[in-house]
């Protein structure tokens, strides 16, 4: 086990700047997810840590070893690839044993580790098969077992679930969480799926355009996004950002006046509020604002409403038995302790509440 530390990593592909001086620390035994849209540099960062890509600037540490100049094979890592990269010409057993064979492990250790990893992944009865005889989910298990068998100091995973169908992905996600909680291997996991990130991570590093924009625990990232990008990227539907007028220390939305905890930067401020944190009422309420219902989408656990508030659109979720039709006007009260205040110019959150 070991920590991972990267300092000021810069990487350019041709004219495209993939990473703009990224620094990140993953603690020993921590599970960190790199989350971001495609092209944000998350996979590049992972590959630099693996040694498969060379950064122009910056250093990579694994434990207290500076591995920046080391080839991948000397870094004591294991990796799970997006398309599994399970060797088609080797049996499942030999695939899992690959890393141990390269380390010249003793036959006893090799057999013991392979069997332990295979049992953990529930593929102990497939050891003699070839990958062509396996389903996608089983290949995925082989890829993870191969990584666990070498007992790596750190485990790197590059979108390991994205090639599985939705149901299997859900199952594997829970299984991975159980497995890695048990093995306590320091893990860095790349995904563009925010639900996956929320579900698995001890901490999430949200990346955009080659920067880490926020690095925090999942619920913090969800409830207190550092800027409009994070609030919009995480959560489905995304966070609402309402432009509201500032009067003194108060933000005014019709009859609703909210206290802004820090001095506002200008005459307007952005109010970030999650769709589920808006409480809807059919009757007029004190301390509320009204919005017209444009669309009602029944999604099962709740109804998703698209609303018009002045010139702005927002989303809200209401219980499935809430009787509402398009065209109606509703009164809304936000949960006062779930609000996020942001600078409308920069999109950055205002200083801590």
């Amino acid at each position: 086990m070991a920590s991972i530390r990267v300092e000021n990593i810069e990487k350019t592909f041709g004219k495209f700047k993939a990473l703009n001086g990224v620094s990140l620390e993953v603690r020993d035994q921590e599970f960190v997810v790199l989350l971001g849209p495609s092209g944000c540099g998350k996979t590049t960062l992972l590959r630099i840590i693996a040694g498969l890509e060379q950064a122009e600037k910056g250093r990579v540490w694994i434990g207290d070893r500076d591995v920046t100049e080391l080839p991948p094979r000397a870094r004591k890592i294991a990796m799970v690839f997006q398309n599994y990269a399970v060797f088609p010409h080797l049996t499942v057993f030999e695939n899992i044993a690959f890393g141990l064979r390269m380390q010249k492990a003793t036959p006893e250790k090799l057999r013991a580790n392979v069997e332990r990893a295979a049992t953990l992944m529930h593929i102990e009865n497939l050891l003699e098969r070839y990958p062509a005889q396996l389903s996608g989910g089983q290949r995925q298990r082989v890829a993870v077992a191969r990584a666990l068998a070498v007992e790596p100091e750190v485990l790197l995973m590059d979108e390991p679930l994205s090639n599985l169908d939705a149901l299997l992905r859900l199952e594997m996600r829970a299984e991975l969480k159980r497995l890695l909680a048990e093995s306590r291997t320091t893990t860095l996991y790349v995904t563009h799926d925010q639900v996956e990130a929320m579900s698995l991570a001890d901490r999430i590093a949200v990346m955009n355009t080659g920067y880490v924009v926020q690095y925090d625990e999942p619920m913090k990232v969800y409830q207190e996004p550092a800027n409009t990008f994070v609030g919009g990227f995480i959560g489905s539907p995304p966070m609402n950002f309402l432009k509201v007028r500032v009067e003194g220390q108060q933000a005014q939305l019709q009859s609703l006046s909210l206290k802004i905890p820090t001095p506002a930067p200008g005459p307007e401020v952005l109010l970030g509020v999650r769709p589920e944190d808006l409480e809807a009422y059919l009757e007029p309420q004190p301390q509320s604002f009204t919005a017209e219902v444009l669309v009602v989408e029944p999604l099962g656990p709740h109804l998703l409403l698209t609303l018009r508030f002045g010139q702005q659109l927002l989303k809200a979720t209401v219980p499935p038995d809430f009787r509402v039709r398009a065209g109606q006007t509703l009164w809304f009260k936000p949960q006062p302790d779930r609000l996020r205040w942001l600078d409308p110019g920069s999109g950055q959150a205002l200083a801590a509440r």
Partner: protein
Amino acid sequence: MRSERYIPYVLILPSVLFLLFLFAWPLLEALLLSVRGSGGQWTLENFQRMAADLYFKDALKYTLLLTVVIVPLQVVMALGMAMLLGGISRGRDLFLYVWTIPLGISDLAAGIVWLAIFTERGYLNSFLQGIGVIQQPQLWLSYETPTMIFVAVVAAEVWRATAIVFVILVAGLQLIPKEYSEAAEVFGATPWQRFWKVTLPLLMPSLQVALILRTILALEVFAVVVALGGRNLPVLAGEAYYWYNAYQNPGVAAAYSVIILGISVVATMLYLRLMRSKREGAA
């Protein structure tokens, strides 16, 4: 809608007819020719005459020897070149084009190029005289120096036909997803181990194609040998030619062709059996 089902068949019909007319039929004719006497009766006479001929043993020996020497040499060289090319990023295309130039040269022309080097007043003698290694021009390609003719044929063939193996292997290497090599790298394999444990096994299908193609072509070697050694280095295809043209005996010429065909078929079966990929075996 129903007529559309026949369209594919109609479209491949011309090429099928062409192949039947120009390949299958002559093949059958050659087979019949080899086992029939002048009166049309069934006989093994042609094969007996062939086997009794002075040149037959040498032709068989040299053909097999050339194949056994040339094909592995070409595969190893082409594999090395293809792997080197994979390691180049800048100027890759330049190397690719330069290395494939010999593809555009006919085998007879290739033979003549090497003849110009090895002949009595050729480049090799001029060079050796120039640096003072020899005083008199040496006779490299005469009936007294079959080994030298053999070496010259090997050199010419390697120079001429390694490119086709190279092209097949480059294409094959490009088909292997780079994740396999990366996975091997992450799990501790040295470059040498990556080559032996991952790249080479995954390249097997291309290697098989290249080996079969090159072996069949090597068994038919003719123009390069004729240009460099004439009949001083007899080969099977050359004998077929001499029996057909000089001796006006199509029957024995056909027997030689059938021998080449037989060896080619056996070699191909061997490759297919020995190199059967595990994925296929498993699927």
